[in-house]
């Protein structure tokens, strides 16, 4: 009886969706590395990679292939189990975050609707936060297991940085949750589609969230855990071959997912701006496809901003990082939260 009650089609639907999202994450991460190098080139009056294929579009494949064929070195003094666990953990946490993001409008059919979201759970955004906070372990374990002083310093820096910047991130999020009254990602998007994007009402919250996302992804100007010039690449210094590739890749997947989260929370998710798409009377699958492309456009823009910032700003000093996080962003986020609460109380009266 138990097996009869399992909905095979639901499992199949979710399995396909998960496979698609993981494939998409890898694909986007691959081409973000390409975009990073291209944009870096353009911002420095260069061309960027342009030799592998037309405009160098096969460059990420060449890089990936190279990483696979590199010699695999595990340091003798390292803790083998943890050393192998580190990159895997970084990758898993990067991928798991994408489960709760709604990737497009649900496909409505006669038999029911298929949501383009792996799990529309009630705690939605909190899952993102809990998984992101586990993401620290990828860096911590990698740095610790390498048995290298630079890696260890990097791991400690990474842990303190990520813990510090989760606080203002959460506080900036609370103001958004005041407005939606729900943690569900689908309802956050629906609320924005109905009342306008959150970035209009929460510009300060958006900026704080974005800055914290930079810190959570270890992106410049907060890339202290992998500071090349002081820590020789930090926590992944001892890693080689595809394990190094996993760490580097996880960073780009993190960027992709955090762009998706920012787009969902502040830029209206898959909502198409300035139009009422319900009046178009399109086929449901076409509608989903369009809304998915809109979300991808928003994500691409955010990824570009990530890259743009990286090639503009030098790395923060450690004390500047901590001062910014604790003395500037947290008070600002609290202020933002209080103002939002006050305005909402005032408007309800």
């Amino acid at each position, binding site marked *: 009886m138990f097996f009869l009650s399992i909905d095979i089609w639901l499992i199949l639907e979710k399995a396909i969706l998960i496979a698609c999202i993981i494939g998409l994450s890898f694909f986007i991460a691959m081409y973000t590395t390409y975009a990073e190098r291209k*944009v870096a080139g*353009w*911002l*420095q*009056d*260069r*061309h960027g990679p*342009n030799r592998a294929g037309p405009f160098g579009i096969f460059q990420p494949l060449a890089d990936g292939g190279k990483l696979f064929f590199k010699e695999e070195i595990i340091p003798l003094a390292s803790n083998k189990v943890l050393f192998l666990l580190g990159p895997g953990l970084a990758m898993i946490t990067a991928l798991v975050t994408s489960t709760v993001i709604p990737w497009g409008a649900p496909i409505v059919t006669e038999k029911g609707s298929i949501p383009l979201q792996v799990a529309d759970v009630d705690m939605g955004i909190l899952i993102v936060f809990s998984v992101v906070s586990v993401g620290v372990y990828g860096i911590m374990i990698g740095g610790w297991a390498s048995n290298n002083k630079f890696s260890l310093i990097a791991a400690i820096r990474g842990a303190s940085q990520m813990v510090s910047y989760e606080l203002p991130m959460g506080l900036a999020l609370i103001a958004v949750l005041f407005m939606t009254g729900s943690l569900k990602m689908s309802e956050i998007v629906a609320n924005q589609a109905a009342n306008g994007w959150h970035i209009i009402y929460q510009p300060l919250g958006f*900026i704080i969230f974005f800055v914290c996302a930079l810190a959570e992804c270890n992106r410049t100007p907060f890339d202290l855990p992998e500071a090349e010039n002081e820590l020789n690449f930090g926590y992944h210094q001892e890693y080689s071959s595809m394990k190094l590739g996993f760490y580097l890749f996880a960073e780009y997947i993190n960027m992709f997912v955090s762009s998706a989260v920012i787009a969902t929370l502040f830029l209206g998710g898959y909502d198409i701006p300035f139009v009422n798409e319900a009046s178009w009377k399109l086929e449901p699958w076409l509608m989903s496809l369009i809304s998915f492309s809109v979300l991808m456009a928003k994500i691409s823009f955010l990824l570009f901003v990530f890259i*743009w*910032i990286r*090639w*503009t*700003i030098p790395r923060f000093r450690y004390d500047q990082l901590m*001062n*910014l996080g604790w003395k*500037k*962003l947290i008070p*600002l986020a609290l202020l933002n939260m209080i103002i939002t609460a006050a305005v909402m109380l005032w408007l309800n009266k």
Partner: protein
Amino acid sequence: MQLTNRAKQVDRKPMTFLESIYLWNIVKGMGITISHLFKKKATIQYPEQTRTFSKVFRGLHVLNRDAEGRENCTACGLCAVACPAEAITMEAAERLPGEELLYREEKYAVKYEINMLRCIFCGLCEEACPKDAIYLSQTFAPANYGRKGFIYKKEDLLIPHPVNEKDAYQKALGNRVEKN
């Protein structure tokens, strides 16, 4: 009185709150970087495009022949003496009867080697040569896999034969010689 009146007092005021969140200055910096997106790229796409050298560029050496294709060099050794890097070595030999089409004068270089790793491309050999037998062209020594490959033999240095290999000869003359 100061030496110049351009000295500026360093501003050591503590940052204001707006400065201390860095945001405005970061936005200004991002404006500068984005403007570079639309600027002309400085890159020269090397194998397809090449940089044009100056008229007086001193590149790889060429051993000259006269109009009938006879080698000019008489192995007098003045270039080797003039060379500050001691990059040139040569061995002289006497021209035998029947070799008049190969060598212009009675004495010629059997062996003529320039070590391109030692050479500083100063052009003193060109100035020292009384027979107009060596001059510096407008190409540079290409990369090589070993040190031996950088010791250029006479075959590597000789200009193509002006009668038998006309096209190659014209190409080897380069634009500087054509102008003269």
